[in-house]
């Protein structure tokens, strides 16, 4: 398993994609921006580049010839995706924290980068994983339509929740508030986000294994 992850890290993933989270994270320093976009860059840029590289370098063939189980091939790939997602999320959260200190008096139109917002981001990535990973493993090399569907779903989730955050007084109160009660609620949303992210990523992995077993390499 570890060997498979290291194979991706050493051969397939350009170091740029490990620095990219810091570049994108810095976008959190733009005051009062739509911060959902920061993590969406992962879906828009990192994922297609990564999967194009796997395809161009015949990674599927390369790995299939080696003594590794199909299940582990999927597990390692899911860990790589989840690992990069968390790297993006954590760096963005750190930059978000700095952003809140830099601009303390901002009257946020879009979600402020608080814990509740990161909870929503985790759900967005969970939806992305749940759609992208199983759809990709139908062939294990074609990723275009899987990416299109997953990005659309993630953007819809971001768009609808942001719209609710602006339009709906209750949702607005929960996500924009800074009182102790609201912060507590935001913490719960973050925890719920973590649980949903873990659960959906595991489901995505299981579905992907099932499909990958049927793939003719």
């Amino acid at each position, binding site marked *: 398993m570890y*060997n498979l992850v*290291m*194979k991706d890290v*050493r*051969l*397939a993933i350009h170091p740029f994609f490990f620095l990219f989270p810091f570049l994108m994270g810095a976008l959190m320093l733009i005051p009062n921006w739509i911060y959902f976009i920061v993590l969406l860059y992962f879906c828009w840029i990192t994922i297609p580049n990564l999967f194009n590289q796997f395809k161009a*370098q*015949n*990674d599927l*063939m*390369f790995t*299939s*010839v*080696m*003594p*590794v*189980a199909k299940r582990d091939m999927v597990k390692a790939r899911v860990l790589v995706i989840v690992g990069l997602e968390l790297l993006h999320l954590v760096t963005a959260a750190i930059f978000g924290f700095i952003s809140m200190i830099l601009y303390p008096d901002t009257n946020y139109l879009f979600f402020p980068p608080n814990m509740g917002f990161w909870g929503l981001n985790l759900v967005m990535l969970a939806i992305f994983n749940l759609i992208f990973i199983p759809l990709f493993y139908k062939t294990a090399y074609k990723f275009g339509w899987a990416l299109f569907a997953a990005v659309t779903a993630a953007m819809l989730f971001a768009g609808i929740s942001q719209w609710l955050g602006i339009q709906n007084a209750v949702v607005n109160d929960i996500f924009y508030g800074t009182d102790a009660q609201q912060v507590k609620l935001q913490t719960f949303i973050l925890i719920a986000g973590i649980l949903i992210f873990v659960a959906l990523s595991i489901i995505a992995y299981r579905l992907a294994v099932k499909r990958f077993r*049927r793939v*003719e*390499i």
Partner: protein
Amino acid sequence: MLALDVRNVNKRYHNFHLKNVSFQLEKGYIMGFIGENGAGKTTTIKSILNMTHMDSGEIHVLGRNMSEYELELKQEIGYAMGGVDFYTRSKVKALTEVIKKFYVNWDDETYRNYLLKFKLDENKRIAELSTGMKVKYNIAIALSHGAKLLIFDEPTSGLDPVARDELLDIFQGLVAEGEISILFSTHITSDLERCADFITFIQNGQIVRSGEKEEFKESYLLLNGAATQLNQVKDRLISYKMNSFGFTGLILARDFNNSWDMKAATPSLEEIMVYFAKKEDEYV
């Protein structure tokens, strides 16, 4: 002991069918796996490596069932595919560093020795290696993890005659001690004339014949006769070609009758392949 035992493998695609493919490779020998493009060579090899799902059949490698012991057996199989490259922009060194971690019996010293023997430069990128060097690199990897069965899919296609000759010498050297066995698919039959011990001939998804090379060739005869004699033997010929002197046709040696006043000679592997392909065309 059998290095490879393929039993009744069936696999149906919508436009192609692998039918009851069976053949055996004795340990310590080289088997040439021949057939025209699209005959089913690669599909058979993929079935051996458990990369496609067989509809039915069994594969045994070194006495053990591949579907049960896939991971253990893959430790003992070396595989190289001509013309397909992996991670071509990576350096040989980087690729080896990754690959070696997957094999429990990896031996760095053996690897170093083969690098020297094959004059492989570790600092070159895969894309910078010649076709022959790539095959040698694959051999070095396979032998360094102690592979006992080497499966090469068209390893000599795209090689110049000098590199081919060198590679065939290497193959023969590898099996000399009797531990390593090679299954080697190709459509360049002259390579097999030189180094194969056994021949398995596949056509249109079916094994035509599998056996010791000389016996394989001697089981056929190439007949030369006048055009007027053709009708006498036409029904028994596998296929034939007309030329200005008469006809040339391939026949099973047991169907040949000495009383016929015709020249008969043992065909080459290429001639056997060509006449079988011609027969196929006639039915189309």
